[in-house]
C-alpha cells in the first residue's frame, strides 16, 4: 500500500544542473628550507584562523617489529613539556592564542598539528617548533600518559569495530609492520622514557619533513616567519627501513573474534590492494565509489535500503605509504551474518563481471568530482588534501587535475579495477560477535580460525558441540 500526504498532484521533474563554476584554487607557495624542511602554504581567507601541521615521515610501522605503538606514545608525550615550557604552560599558551593542538602518530608519519587565531600565527608556529625541537619528556608525564594508554587499550579491546580492524590488519599484513595497529598492555608496560627520547631524536628532524600552513595570511610574510622560526633547526635525516612483504592469500578464510552476549556482529571483508601511486588508483577510487563508497552505492542500497541488515555499511580503499588494502565493513544483526556475506560477495562479483551502466557511471563520476570540490572549500579540508599530496609525494598537479582524471574514466576502467583489486576469491573475512550465534553462518564462507579479544587463538571445539 502506498500512502500520500496530499491528494493534489504536482508532477514535475528534477531541474537540470546549471553550468558549473570553476574551483578557485587558493594561492599556493612551496619552498624547501636549507635544512630540508619542505614548506607548503595555502591562503584561504574564509575565517581569521590558521591551521598548521608539521609531519615527520616516521610512524608506528617503523618500529613495530621492536616496540609497537612507540611512535604514538612519543607523540603523546611530546606535548607534555619542553625545555622552557612545562605542560601547564603549553596548555595555557594554546588557550591564549585561541588554539588547539594535536600530536599523533599513524603507521607512516608522526605529526604536530595546531590551529588557532590568525592574529597569533607566530606564536602558534613557535610552539610547534618548540615541541618539535625541545621536547623534554618529563618522567612523571610519561608515566601518567603510559597509564592512560594502558586504560585506553583496555577499552579498545571491548570495542567490536576496533577488534575487527585489528584482526583484519593482522591477517592481511602478516609479518609486515602494518599488521600491528595497537600495542598489547604488556608492551605498553615495557616502554621506557629512553626509547621515546631516542625515537624523538632520530625522527623529529627537519630533513624530509613537511610543514603545511593553511588559512588567513599573506604567503610572503608567513614564509619569512617560518624561515626565522624553523631555519636554524639542524639534525641528520634517518634512512628509511625495509619491510618484509605481506603474505599472499589463497582462498577465502574466516577469522572469528568471540565476544559472548553481543547483540550485533561486526563484519569485515577485503584484501590487499594499491597505494595512491599505483596507475590504477583513479580507477579504483571510482570502482569503490560505485561498490560501497557512497550513500548511493550498490552495497548500501542492497544491504541497508533494500534488506535493512545494517545501519552503516561501507567500503574503503585504504592507501598506506607502502601498501594499500580494500575493505568492506558492516555491523549487522546476528541472524543475517551469512546473508550479509552473500550480498557482499555478490556485489563484488557483479563489479568484476558486468560493465557498469552508463547512467550509474556518470553519477559516480559526478559524485567524486563534486565531493572533491566540497573537500577543498574549508581550511581543514584543504589542509587534509594538501597533506595527502605532499606526504605521498604525488605528482605536481594532482589536486588540480583530479576532477579531469575522474571524468575521463570509462566503464572498462571500472571493470579492470574491480577484476584486479576486488579479490573476491581470496578475500579474508573477519567477524566479531557471539560465537554460538554466528560460527555456523561464517563457516559457510571458508575455514574458521577463532580468537579471543586479546588476539589469542582459541582451540577449535568439536563440530557436534557447536551444532548442538
Amino acid at each position, binding site marked *: 500500500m502506498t500512502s500520500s500526504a496530499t491528494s493534489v498532484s504536482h508532477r514535475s521533474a528534477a531541474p537540470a544542473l546549471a553550468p558549473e563554476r570553476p574551483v578557485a584554487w587558493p594561492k599556493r607557495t612551496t619552498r624547501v628550507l636549507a635544512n630540508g624542511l619542505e614548506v607548503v602554504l595555502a591562503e584561504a581567507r574564509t*575565517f581569521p584562523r590558521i591551521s598548521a601541521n608539521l609531519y615527520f615521515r616516521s610512524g608506528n610501522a617503523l618500529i613495530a617489529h621492536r616496540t609497537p605503538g612507540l611512535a604514538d606514545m612519543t607523540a603523546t608525550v611530546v606535548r607534555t613539556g619542553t625545555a622552557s615550557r612545562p605542560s601547564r604552560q603549553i596548555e595555557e599558551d594554546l*588557550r591564549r592564542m585561541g*588554539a588547539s593542538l594535536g600530536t599523533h602518530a599513524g603507521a607512516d608519519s608522526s605529526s604536530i598539528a595546531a590551529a588557532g587565531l590568525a592574529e597569533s600565527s607566530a606564536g602558534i608556529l613557535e610552539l610547534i617548533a618548540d615541541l618539535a625541537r625541545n621536547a623534554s619528556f618529563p618522567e612523571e608525564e610519561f608515566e601518567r600518559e603510559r597509564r592512560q594508554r594502558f586504560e585506553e587499550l583496555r577499552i579498545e579491546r571491548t*570495542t567490536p569495530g576496533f577488534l575487527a580492524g585489528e584482526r583484519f590488519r593482522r591477517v592481511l599484513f602478516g609479518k609486515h609492520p602494518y599488521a600491528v595497529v595497537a600495542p598489547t598492555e604488556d608492551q605498553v608496560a615495557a616502554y621506557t622514557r629512553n626509547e621515546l627520547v631516542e625515537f624523538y631524536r632520530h625522527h623529529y628532524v627537519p630533513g624530509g619533513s613537511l610543514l603545511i600552513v593553511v588559512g588567513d595570511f599573506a604567503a610572503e610574510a608567513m614564509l619569512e616567519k617560518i624561515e626565522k622560526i624553523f631555519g636554524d633547526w639542524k639534525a641528520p635525516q634517518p634512512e628509511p627501513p625495509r619491510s618484509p612483504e605481506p603474505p599472499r592469500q589463497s582462498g577465502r578464510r574466516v577469522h572469528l573474534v568471540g565476544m559472548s552476549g553481543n547483540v550485533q556482529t561486526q563484519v569485515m571483508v577485503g584484501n590487499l590492494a594499491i597505494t595512491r601511486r599505483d596507475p590504477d588508483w583513479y580507477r579504483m577510487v571510482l570502482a569503490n565509489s560505485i561498490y560501497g563508497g557512497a550513500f548511493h552505492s550498490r552495497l548500501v542500497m542492497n544491504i541497508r535500503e533494500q534488506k535493512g541488515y545494517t545501519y552503516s555499511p561501507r567500503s574503503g580503499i585504504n592507501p598506506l605509504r607502502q601498501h594499500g588494502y580494500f575493505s568492506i565493513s558492516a555491523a549487522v544483526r546476528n541472524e543475517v551474518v551469512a546473508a550479509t556475506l552473500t550480498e557482499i560477495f555478490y556485489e563484488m562479483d557483479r563489479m568484476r563481471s558486468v560493465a557498469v551502466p552508463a547512467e550509474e557511471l*556518470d553519477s559516480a563520476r559526478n559524485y567524486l568530482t563534486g565531493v572533491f570540490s566540497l573537500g577543498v572549500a574549508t581550511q581543514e579540508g584543504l589542509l587534509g588534501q594538501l597533506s595527502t599530496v605532499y606526504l605521498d609525494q604525488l605528482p605536481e598537479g594532482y589536486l588540480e587535475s583530479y576532477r579531469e582524471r575522474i571524468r575521463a574514466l570509462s566503464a572498462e576502467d571500472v571493470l579492470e579495477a574491480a577484476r584486479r583489486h576486488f579479490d573476491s576469491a581470496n578475500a579474508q573475512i573477519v567477524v566479531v560477535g557471539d560465537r554460538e550465534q554466528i560460527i555456523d553462518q561464517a563457516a559457510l564462507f571458508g575455514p574458521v580460525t577463532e580468537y579471543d579479544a586479546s588476539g589469542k587463538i582459541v582451540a577449535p571445539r568439536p563440530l557436534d558441540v557447536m551444532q548442538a
Partner: protein
Amino acid sequence: MNSSPSTSPKSAPHLHIPVEHATLANGLRVVVSPDHSAPVVTVGVYYQIGFRLEPRGRSGFAHLFEHMMFQGSENAGKMEHIRLINSSGGLLNGTTNYDITNYFESVPSNALERVLWLEADRMRALKVDDENLRNQRDVVKEEVRVNVMNQPYGGFPWLDLPPVAFRNWPNAHNFYGDFADLDAATLGDVQQFFRTYYAPNNAVLLIVGDADPAEAFAFAKRYFEGIPPGAAPPRADITEPPQTEERHGKVEERLGPLPAIAIGYTLPPRESEDWFAMGLVDRILHGGRAGRVYRKLVLEEQIAVEASGGADLIDTNGPTQMVTQIVHKPEFTSEGTVAVFDEIIEELQRKGVSPEELEPVKVKFRSDFYSMLETGMGSHMPRFGLMHYLACFTLYDGDPGRINTILDGFLGVTPERVQAAAKKYLVPQNRAVLVRRPVNLPPPVNPHVSVGNGGAR
C-alpha cells in the same frame, strides 16, 4: 566568507556575515548567507520538531520519521532523492535533535535549484509505503545496536543522563526509542506526524554559500511557496517542575572495563544574562587540557583517564544541562571522584576567576566559534556550523542576524558574573549525577582519594 574582523572600541572583533531573510506567504522562513569563496553551497531545512517534542508513549518516533523522509516523495521515489544528490556531486544527511530535526546537503553550487526542488518535494508530499517503514525500522534498530547496545559506553551520557536529570517525559524519555515503541509505529502514524509537524510554517530553509540571494529567494518562492501551510502544531509542555534535591542514577556497563560518571547542571533560560555567564563557566571548567576539570582530575590527581564536558547552548530551546563526563581508573571510587570534582566547583564558587584566566578563555571561545561556523561536521560540509546556528537563531529567537552579535554576549561576561552564576547554578539541587558501572568491575583496591562531603551517595 566576509568575516574580516574590524576593531571595535573594546577591540573585540565583530563578525560581518551577510544574512538576508524573508518569510514566504505560507509561513516558510528563508535565510540566505552568500559566500562566493568556493563554488559550493550548503542547504538545510530545519523543522521545529525534535525528539523531546515527540508524542508521549511513542519514544523514538521523531528519529524513525527522520529516516522516512529519505524514503521517497511524490516526484522522487525511494533511492531517487539520495541518487539525485550524490550524482549532483553532493553529500546529504539528516539528524534528530532535542528541538529540531534537520535535513541538509552540500553540493557544487550548480545543483542549488535541484536541491531546492528535492527538499520542496518531500515537504509537499512524502510518499512512503509499509515496506519502506519495515525496512527503516530494521535500519534504526541496527543504528541503536551499533551506537548504544554493542558499543562500550554507548549512549553515555546523552541517553543515560536525561532520565535521571529530568522529570517531565519530553525531556526524560529514551530518545532513540524502545524497540516495542518502534515496532508499534504504523504508516498512518507516519503520515499523521508529517501533516502535524512538517508544514512550511514550522520550518526554516537555509541557503549558505555560493548563491546569489535574489536568485536563491526566487527559487525558494518557485518551489516552496505553493506548499499549503498547516495548522500551528501542538507544542509539548517541556517545562520542568522545580528541582529541590540532588538526583542520582546508576547504569550497568556491559562491555567497557572502567567506571564512568556524568554530572549535569541544568542551565538558565536561553539568552538570559546567566546563560551567557554559564557559557564561560563551561569553558573555564571544560576548555580542553587547560580547563580546570581535566587539569585536576587527569593531570594533577590522576584519578581519571578522560574528563571532558560541554553545554548545548545555541542548539537547544528548553531544559538542558552542562554535562561533565569522566572515565576513571578502577582503583578509585566513583564517590571519591565526585568529591574531587566538587572541590573544583567549590573553588570556583569561593574564589571566582581572575581576569588573567578569563581573558584567554574568551579568546579560545571566539576562535572555537569561528571554527564551528566554518565546518562543524568535520570538513565535509562547508559552513555546516554557520547554517546550523542560523537555523537555531531563526527558529528560537526569530532573528538570524544574531549570528553576528551573539559573541558579544559571551565576550562581555565579567569575572563577577562568572562567580555569581557558579554560586547560583552549580549547586546540588540543580544537578544530576549518573554512574555507569562495569558489570565485571572488581571493588576498588587502592582508593587514594578520601571521600569528602558533598560526594554522591
